[in-house]
Structures are given as structure tokens and as C-alpha cells.
């Protein structure tokens, strides 16, 4: 299933770090496939690589190039300690937000109290 892009944008950084936390190291297309297999839908290269560059710039991942065995060379990403702690804290916040949102969206009562009507001042 392909989720709305707006939803995915909020969670994609954590999802990519989660993929990297589960693997010793991985490369762009493999990360994209892992996201798809875990139900996050197809993430195009044009979305994934700017995010990976941002993670690299923030030192949440380390990279190394490996020559391909008969195929293209690949840039491998490995999560750093800073990336792991960022993932833990961001994931905890996200889960709390998601639970709050889910519980609010499912609740039928109590509703939000209606705002009191604005006081109108007679003209003149």
C-alpha cells in the first residue's frame, strides 16, 4: 500500500534508521525494498537519497563504497551510535504521538467542548 506522501514524510527518517539498525549495513535500493516489505510502500530514489544525505551530514550514519561484483558499485550505510540514540528518542516520541492521535480519532466521546460564543458588541 502506498501511504499519502505527507504521512510518510513524518516517519521516513525513523523508518530508514530502523532498517539500518536491523542490518549491519545496507545500500539505497535495499533500504527502499526493506521499507516496501515492511508495509511503508514504495519510496523512490528521489525521496530516499536526499534523506540519506541528511542523515550522513548529521552523522547518524557512516558510509563506505564497495565495488560491485559484476554489477554497479554501491554506497553502504551503517547506523552510528548517534543515529541509534536519535532513533530511540524520535521513535518514542512518534509512538506517543501516534497513540494519542489514534485514540483521539477512534474516540466517539467525550467530544471537544464547543467554544463559547463570541461576545458581540452592538454597533453604535
Amino acid at each position, binding site marked *: 500500500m502506498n501511504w499519502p506522501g505527507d504521512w510518510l514524510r513524518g516517519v521516513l527518517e525513523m523508518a530508514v534508521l530502523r532498517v539500518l539498525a536491523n542490518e549491519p549495513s545496507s545500500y539505497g535500493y535495499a533500504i527502499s525494498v526493506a521499507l516496501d516489505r515492511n508495509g511503508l510502500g514504495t519510496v*523512490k530514489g528521489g525521496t530516499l537519497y536526499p534523506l540519506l*544525505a541528511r542523515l550522513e551530514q548529521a552523522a547518524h550514519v557512516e558510509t563506505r563504497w564497495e565495488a560491485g561484483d559484476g554489477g554497479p558499485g554501491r*554506497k553502504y550505510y551503517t547506523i552510528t551510535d548517534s543515529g541509534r540514540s536519535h532513533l530511540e528518542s524520535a521513535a518514542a516520541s512518534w509512538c506517543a504521538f501516534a497513540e494519542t492521535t489514534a485514540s483521539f480519532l477512534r474516540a466517539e466521546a467525550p467530544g471537544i467542548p464547543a467554544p463559547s460564543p463570541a461576545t458581540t458588541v452592538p454597533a453604535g
Partner: protein
Amino acid sequence: MLDPTKTTLPKQWASEFAMALRSRDVTGAAIGDALREAEAYCADSGQAPLEAFGPAAAYADSLTDLPTAAAHTSWAARIAPSALGLAGLTLALPTFDAWRAGRSVQLPLGGLVTLLVIAATVTVFLVWPRTFRRAVPFLILVSLGMWGSVSATALLQQPVATLPTVPSALVAAGALIGSGIWQMRTLDMDVIVDPLGPTPRPGRGFLLLTAWLLPIGTLVAMGIAMFAPVR
């Protein structure tokens, strides 16, 4: 060194992508990385770059976190030393003719037009740096500039200004030497590096030759002019 047109990506997409990143002063190493990554992703996924990444310039714009070189290597700063050298060359040749003939410098209309074309080209780069970072507008602008300069020099020989020889020679020499020194300071030769290949290191001789190309070219042109009859 990595030539964007020698990857397995479509040549136009790869060239526009590399050029768009270069115009933002992204380092050669980071451009090489991005090119090879795009190449690997397309090979793995079986997608064309347009499908996987979208238009080259837009994708380059989205890569906002790539390392960039110092600000002095902007395109305007990159072409300014060459423009100064070309201006020196344009003034040096009629000054040399005047010195041989023992008269004042008669700046031909073509020389004046060339100086204006150079100034206009640099101004266009300064005012609209983003417009002319794409391959086609860049090539059109540079081609028009070169065509305009060469045509003007060849066709517009009538003198439009008379200048004293010694000050003209000093200005021309100053512009040429200044351009060489400026080139030496700004020429970083930050070539696009193949992350899977050896790190290219341009030799010092090559750097010197590149920086002093216009002053050397002027001397060569003067040497050739020695064989022409005095006008």
C-alpha cells in the same frame, strides 16, 4: 576523475544533474558520489533516472545536504578571472600593433564590442546565476558570447578610440597578470571524483598552464603578429 557522460545513466540527465550540483558549488567528491549512487539505484531497480529521481535539476535541488566548496568558487567568481584576462588580451593586441608602428593605440570597434560582450556575459551570470546553470542556456550564452566576440573582432576593424600606448600597455599587462594571479588563487580544480576509482591529482604544471593560459596565449598571438606587416 568521473565523466558524467561515461556512466550508464542517460548522458543528458547525468550532465544536467552534475551541472546543477556544480552550479551550487557542491564538491567534486559529492557529485561523484551522487552520480554513482543514482547509477547503482537505476541498475538495481531497473528504473530510468527520470522515473526514479525525476528531472535532473529538481533532484539536484533536493540534495540540500551535500557538502559545498568555499563561496569564492561560485560561477561568477569562476568566470571573472577569465573575463579579466580576455579584456587584457583584447587591449594587448592593438597596443602591440601600435607599439610596433610607433603610434597611439587605435582600439577597433570590434575590440570595444568584445569588451562589452565580456562584461555583459559576466553580468548575466551574476544577475541570473540559477537560469544559466542548466546545460542548454549555459551553452547558448557562452556560444553567443564567443560568436559575438569573434565576429566583432573580425568584422568591425574601424577604430573607435585612440588611447596612449604606455598606459594601454600597462592596463593590458595588469589585466593579464591580474587574471593569472586571480586564477591561481581560485583555481581549485575540484574535479568530479569517482568514489570507486583512484583520487585524481592534477599536476602543478597543469594548474600553472590553466591559470596562465590567457597571458601565454597573448604572448603567442604577439609572436605570430611579429610576422605580419606593420599597420
